[in-house]
């Protein structure tokens, strides 16, 4: 009997301790943030992880009572969290503005602002195989060598994945090498990963020698890189017509269906979902992000260029205070 009493009292003490700890935890959060009233939840593309961390830090420094929660994932995964999981967030920033257009508008969001550009590069380590020989004119031959391993991300999960495919397809045309795209895309399929930043670890441990990735990520991680010609790096608007000649199929809304992605310059998009819990704060954050001297400067330090104002289809539905960061679509000229 005595032992039972002892066991029960130990158990009760444990419960008491847990309750005290939990209570304390809640009280801390309450007093500081008034039960989440000043919480800002941001879903963003993996490639924005470094600049957004810095932007959020500066934003919090200016707004001391705000608590920011960031979640990085593949851009399509971010949209899925809202559309399928009914997760609520205040800001979603995608590595491809079309992800917002196709997966979120009109049901979960109303508008879309194009805010930053990027370009495709190939990164490597100092001791990558053939690192001393590779350059912008022979990279495709080196990638095809047997003992060289390269990685790219999953075209179905991540914009960087289908952009890598588009770059390779454009390279075949640009360097005039028949069959090049097919050969490169058939090789090293086992190194395809869900998002481009997952590949960095594989590069670091020496499993991979080269990866297709965004220039901004390469600069943030101070990696060696090969800059590709503007005709194939998906950066320049003036080559949009050439980019358009490349197509890739990615999975559609259900397994077995496909949608065709056509090459176009890399443009990041950002929006506030309709059911954002903290709409006011989200607007405040976006005016910070889209300001050339604030968010724009941080993006620049991280290898990305702010590109506001740009045209957007949804200009009419933009919140008043954000209209200066976008342009209405001109008649006849789209995107």
């Amino acid at each position: 009997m005595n032992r039972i009493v002892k066991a029960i009292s130990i158990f009760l003490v444990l419960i008491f301790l847990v309750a005290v700890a939990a209570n304390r935890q809640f009280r801390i959060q309450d007093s500081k943030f008034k039960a989440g009233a000043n919480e800002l939840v941001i879903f963003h593309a993996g490639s924005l992880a470094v600049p957004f961390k810095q932007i959020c830090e500066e934003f919090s420094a200016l707004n001391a009572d705000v608590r920011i929660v960031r979640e990085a994932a593949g851009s399509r995964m971010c949209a899925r969290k809202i559309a399928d999981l009914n997760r609520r967030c205040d800001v979603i920033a995608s590595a491809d503005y079309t992800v917002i257009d196709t997966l979120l508008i009109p049901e979960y969001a109303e508008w879309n602002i194009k805010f930053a550009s990027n370009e495709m590069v190939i990164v490597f380590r100092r001791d990558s195989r053939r690192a001393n020989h590779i350059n912008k004119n022979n990279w495709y031959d080196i990638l095809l060598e047997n003992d060289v391993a390269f990685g790219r991300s999953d075209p179905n999960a991540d914009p960087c994945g289908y952009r890598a495919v588009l770059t390779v397809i454009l390279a075949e045309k640009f360097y005039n090498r028949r069959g090049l795209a097919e050969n490169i895309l058939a090789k090293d399929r086992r190194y395809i990963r869900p998002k481009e930043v997952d590949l960095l670890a594989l590069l670091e441990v020496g499993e991979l020698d080269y990866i297709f990735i965004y220039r901004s990520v390469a600069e943030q991680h101070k990696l060696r890189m090969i800059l590709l010609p503007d005709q194939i790096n998906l950066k320049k608007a003036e080559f949009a017509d050439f980019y358009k000649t490349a197509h890739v199929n990615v999975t559609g809304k259900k397994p077995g269906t496909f949608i065709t992605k056509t090459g176009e310059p890399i443009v990041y998009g950002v929006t506030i979902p309709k059911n954002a819990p903290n709409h006011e704060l989200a607007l405040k954050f976006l005016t910070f992000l889209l300001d050339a001297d604030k968010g724009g400067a941080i993006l620049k330090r991280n290898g990305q260029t702010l590109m506001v104002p740009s045209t957007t289809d949804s200009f009419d539905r933009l919140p008043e205070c954000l209209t200066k960061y976008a342009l209405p679509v001109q008649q006849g000229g789209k995107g």
Partner: protein
Amino acid sequence: MRRSAFRTEPLYLVFAALGGLVLLFIIAPLMSMFVNCSLPELAETLRDNEVRSSIWLTLWTSMAATVIFAIAAIPFSYLLARKDFPLKGLVTGIIDLPIVIPHSAAGIALFGVLSRSTLLGRAAEKMGFGFVGTSFGIMAAMAFVSIPYLVNAARDGFLAVDERLEKAALNLGAGPLRVFLTISVPLAWRPILSGLILMWARGMSEFGAVLIIAYRPMITPVLIYERFGAFGLKYARPVAVLFVSVCLVFFIMLRLLAKGEKVAER
């Protein structure tokens, strides 16, 4: 009768109610997943080649990992059950390590020894295979997280075997290997089998470590995650239901095989 004891003692009623809550906690989410999944969806998923090959891959890689590592793990657990040696406490602790470390960390740790730039990775490459992004890598990741279940179950099994039987056989002139193979292992086979089943099941359900070593070829837990990311809940759910069903069938079958003795698991 056990049952009447339950009725007379109110305390046990409370215990039973608490137990019911725990059971509900396990069963309710699974039930809701099954209920939310329509038959046509399931039939369509069943015809999906990608799904079928991934379930098959998951079953056989985990099975292979279990069998390969059993060759070393079973004799080792015998040693743990019978012999005392210095630092034995440390060794048993190390065996349990994979249970407590996060599996994503396990995957990262495995990278350190299996990637192409390491000795092991380079040796494998010379022999014409690799670990990262291959079924060998999947096996390694599965084995890493699941081997404690086998070692612990087998050790407890050997502990339950009467040592006097082994001594008698030794005194009658049988060699230690023969005693091990004809006395100890047959007498402990039920716990060993349930350990094998546990290891196999644990391997099949592994996600974190495998995801890091081998995203492709896709085992089913990874496929479920990928389907969720690329197509949403609606298309991830039938795959999950299908995989859980397949696992349940095998699990129940093998569990029945190993029935009859208290399963020694931790």
